[in-house]
């Protein structure tokens, strides 16, 4: 049983929903066209294909493209030891899709992180609170249009944030420079 076989089985079961599989350096990916069906597809992958672990649930901001966000599910089966990656897209206007916490309990904190950092909401999640930033923080800081230094916020008697002083930064290292001066972290202006 290889990852390709399993991906073909999954794609055969949901032929209208899944495109792929595509393979890159031995990693198999399936693209789910309708994010509303993610829980259904995941439930089948777990119950019939033996993907009993969700290794990671990540989100990507394709800023400037439509749909803006990609949600990535990394599945693994301890029985057959195969990996499978599921990708699905959600739009900026309605960044919402069903939760998979009922299928893998570990998805709970992963989905909270995706919500906290990107603002993607998971419908049916038992406890969709922020996990890294403080409760009441108004922004989603991993979005591409959010500055690295942060934005000032104020929630009196609770918490605040202030922009970090970047001093012209961020400071970027360049690999492969001929000496330490060329390699060390410096302000690198992409334009100049």
């Amino acid at each position, binding site marked *: 049983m290889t990852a390709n076989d399993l991906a073909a089985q999954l794609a055969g079961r949901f032929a209208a929903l899944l495109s792929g599989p595509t393979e890159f350096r031995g990693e198999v990916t399936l693209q789910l066209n309708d994010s509303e069906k993610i829980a259904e597809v995941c439930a089948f992958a777990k119950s019939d294909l033996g993907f009993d672990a969700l290794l990671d649930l990540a989100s990507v901001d394709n800023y400037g493209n439509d749909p803006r966000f990609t949600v990535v599910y990394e599945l693994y089966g301890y029985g057959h030891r195969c990996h499978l990656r599921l990708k699905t897209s959600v739009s900026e206007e309605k960044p919402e899709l069903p939760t998979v916490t009922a299928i893998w309990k570990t998805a709970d904190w992963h989905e909270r992180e995706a919500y906290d950092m990107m603002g993607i909401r998971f419908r049916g999640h038992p406890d969709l609170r922020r996990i890294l930033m403080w409760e009441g923080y108004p922004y989603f800081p991993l979005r591409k249009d*959010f500055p*690295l230094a942060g934005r000032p916020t104020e929630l009196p008697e*609770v*918490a605040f*944030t202030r922009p*970090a*002083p*970047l001093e012209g930064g*961020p400071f970027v290292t360049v690999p492969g420079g001929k000496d330490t001066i060329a390699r060390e972290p410096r302000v690198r202006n992409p334009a100049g």
Partner: protein
Amino acid sequence: MTSLLSKRGLYRGELMQTQAEIGYDSKIEGDVIVTRADAVLNWFRKNSLWPMPMGLACCAIELMAAGAARFDISRFGAEVMRFSPRQSDVMIVAGTVTYKMALAVKRIYDQMAEPKWVIAMGACASTGGMYRSYAVLQGVDNIIPVNVYVAGCPPRPEALLDALIKLQHKVAQEPVLATQKRVAV
């Protein structure tokens, strides 16, 4: 007798110059120690500063090293790490203070009983360090008053011990009785 008095006077004169807290010479004064109440209270305090180990990142590893046998923070009376803020005197903020953790740090500081002091250990606790980021508080002095800052990333245990000794000097100079009824700020 006159020579004795002049000797004592000379000794007191030295005291004025060296800022020592106690004027005591067993040959002259026997079992009596002449000192100020402030000085003796501070002497008690500074030699048993119980730390509240606020270990938030890798600096906490160096804090542990400072507590272990090789560096042995107990030589300075600060070995009783209290995980209860009610029982501790000095909060050692060791590590990166994120905005989320800042709420807990502030709350624990508020729960500590007066008198209380703070050591900001390492670059992150002092200034935010290398984390110029939306998630990190740029120095714990944004939320609580800091008495001693320790440079380093992380500082060596000797640096922390040096900060502790500096704090002891600060404690020794505090006017205790004058501030007994001071409202906590």
